[in-house]
């Protein structure tokens, strides 16, 4: 979900995804390569992202991942589900 979320605005390559998650979460969350690449492969398999080779700002050839329409739908679904669950937990914690 996190990967999809950071890809929502712009296509990014593997390293940038890891950086972006790290930055956006105010250094709270770090995505290890060990889980990032299997996760990306899974997204590719599910058809939620597409990968293309481009040249990065630093002139390197990198593989950029771009979210697809079904990926966006999936993200929306997951966000909704996530909000529902967190709200429920919030409500539970607040009432207690």
């Amino acid at each position, binding site marked *: 979900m996190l990967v999809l979320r950071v890809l929502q605005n712009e296509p990014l390559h593997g390293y940038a995804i890891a950086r972006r998650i790290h930055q956006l979460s105010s250094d709270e969350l770090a995505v290890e*390569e060990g889980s990032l690449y299997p996760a990306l*492969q899974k997204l590719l*398999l599910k*058809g939620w992202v597409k990968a293309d080779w481009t040249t990065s700002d630093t002139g390197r050839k*990198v593989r950029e991942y771009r979210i697809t329409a079904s990926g966006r739908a999936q993200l929306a679904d997951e966000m909704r589900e996530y909000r529902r669950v967190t709200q429920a937990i919030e409500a539970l914690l607040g009432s207690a």
Partner: protein
Amino acid sequence: MNLGELYRRIVYLLNRRRIEAELEREMQTHREMLAEMPGEQPRFGNALKLREDSRDVWGWTWLDTGLQDVRYAFRTMTPGFLLSAALILSFGIGLNVTFFQIVNVALLKPLSVRDPDQLVNLQRRSKDNHSNRVPYAAAEFVRANNHVFSAVLTRTHNNLAFGDDASDLVRVAFVSANWFAELGYGPFRGRVLVREVDGQPHAPPAVVISHEMWTGRYHADPAVVGRSVRLNNRAATIVGVARPEFPDLRTLDDPQIWAPITQIDYFLPGSDLKTAWTSDNIDFYGRLRPGITLDTARESLKVIAAEITRQHPEAWETGTYFEPYSGTRHFRTPAEQQQTWTIVALLACLTMLVLFVACSNLSNLVLSRAMTRIREFSIRVALGASRWRILRQVLIEAFVLACVGTAGGMLAGASAVRLFAATTDMPSYVSLSPDAPTAAAALGLALVTMLVVGFLPAWRVSRQDLSTTMKDGGQQASGSMERARLRKLLITAQVAGSCVLLVVAGLMVRGLQRLLLADPGFEFAQVAVLDPELSRTGINGAEARRWWAQVRARIAANPEAAGVAIASHAPVGSSVSESAYPDAANLIVTNMEVDSEFLQLMKIPIVAGRNFVPSDDHRTSIIVSRRLAERMYGSIDVVGKGFPKSKSSKTIVGVAADARIVRMQARNAAEQYSPLNPESYAHYVLVARARQDPARLIAPLRLAARTADDRVLGSPTLLRDEFQKKLRAPRLASLIGLSAGLLALLLACVGIYGVTSFNASLRTKEMGIRMALGSSPSHLMRMLLRQQAWPLLLGALLGMAGAIPIAIVLQREPFFLDSADPLAYAGVLALLAICGGVANLVPAWRAVRADAVSALRYE
């Protein structure tokens, strides 16, 4: 998993190498970027592990490990093992594939004609009579008056002299002009027969030749169309060549030439085929209109049949009707259908039995391999292989074997079928090349094989406690008694299977032997037969009698001939008319019309009463065979009695000794002889006995036939040749049965040998100790032998029991084998005992002879 995902998975599989290289490069970049970033520790996990984890996501790991197992299986199998396994399986599967293919072509596949389900064959039936042919006139009457057929097809066949050589006969089918169109076949060259042209009354004589004849006699000459040809000395034009796959509706008939049936009296002058109501002379087929069922057709045709009875009461008795048989069942009657299926089921049992024996043998082999590999498996388990992975290894090895066996079996099957087609004169339109159902059958068999061959060892391995076996170097585990029991069970199965096969083979061989040695009740070695087929050439009635008088006198005057007689059918080979009487149940009685010379000429003695004299009337006098007399009246003292017993119309003048004139193998056959019917001379055959060599009678017979009337095309045959022809099928069957049985026995013996020597090797330690304690070698030997004695015995018992139902089937039509032949059973038991004993004795002897004490030293 949705479709898109499956698609992406497959794309991944196809481009795996490229995609993985990309992933590697990507990670490389990632690592470099990480390294460049200040303040970050360049941390990156094991790249290989990462790639493997990423790869797992795509779900193809099982394929990789499976391929590994396959490669490993090939590497660990020794060429000897692989070869013997491939041979065993190829033989087992090949035999079954061959059998299936033949059955498929002969029984399962529909006729390869247009809409075979609409096509019916019509046979003439009444309460007491049944003929599979009908008079042409009746078929024409149906064509003109029915509402159920969209087309009516007629067909008959003759052998006609080709060109100028009277002895060069070709098979000619006379067919209705719509024949090709209704069966859905066009020409290969030129044109086929068509109704609009060849169906017309005064159409010029036209024939179509078969593709086989075109390539053979005409060397595939493209200019053959339009050429003139002489058939029975009549000119006709070849208008076309039929397609090579053009079939015939009569099973396994193979015409070389098709001519319009309306022109039959042009080719056979004087033929009364088109007008005679009294003779059933053509095959009659109809194409049902859409929506008409067999029952509707039968009922609707009853009205027409009744009208025929009204107009021609002399030919059609009341109650005669047409019985339709569907083309989907190859026009077989239910009785024929049942008989065919009985044979098929029986043969299928036997061929499956061979496969079964082969499989259990191989299962034993695989099992021993698996057991000797327990140590290897233990190491793999110790290194972290899962139990499932080990099991899969065993199963995959069986799978590899099954694949090799299937490929070998298909190859063996294809060549066996070709051999079969070559030895049995299959018509060229019958395609025996492997097709989809055959491949499916082979695959199914492979699956069965895999289950049998793979499952037992896998099951055994899975039950082994692999981690403990390592301690004992795998010795103890393989020594467990339970496993030995399984192997004994396999041996029992093999012995039982080969026992059944051997019994069947034994019965066949004994049947053949009986046929060869037994006295058929008449002498045929010196006899030649001439079938002049007078009725087909249009010589009938008084003209026929004159012809016979001339020919007979001419042959009798020949110094080579010891005697000459006239009969309605040739002995030994030909088909005859048969009767069954309620007074003599289960007896099939061959009807022969003979002159007063016949019995004497065939050396069939008269045991009571007298032979025919020329004054005997065919309507009142009869001679019965001894068996018929005994069954019907209980004695042979029957001269002067009425026949048949309950509904007498004739008087018995004599009793002849039993002579199995046509059904030479049958045990339920009897004969009855009537004097010649003066009106039937056109249907009779000439039987001549030679003084020395019957072959020297052939030329005089042919000459006499031609001289008396040059329309007659005689092709004399020798009864000894007919007899050999008759033996061909049982000979072939015995040969096949015997080789299958012996092969199965060989397999079983190899199995026994293997198990005994394996057992002996496991007990080296024990035997060493026993030997050291003073046990004599003969005692040890007995001990080893006893172990294998009971599987052998039990297998033989089971096999004998299993053979009984098969033997009972073999006793019936059309095999007529004597299933209670003690010699066959005793022979099989003796053979089993000897071979089993040797296979048991040799390894035991070798084990005892080996220096057991020195073996002990290694422990």
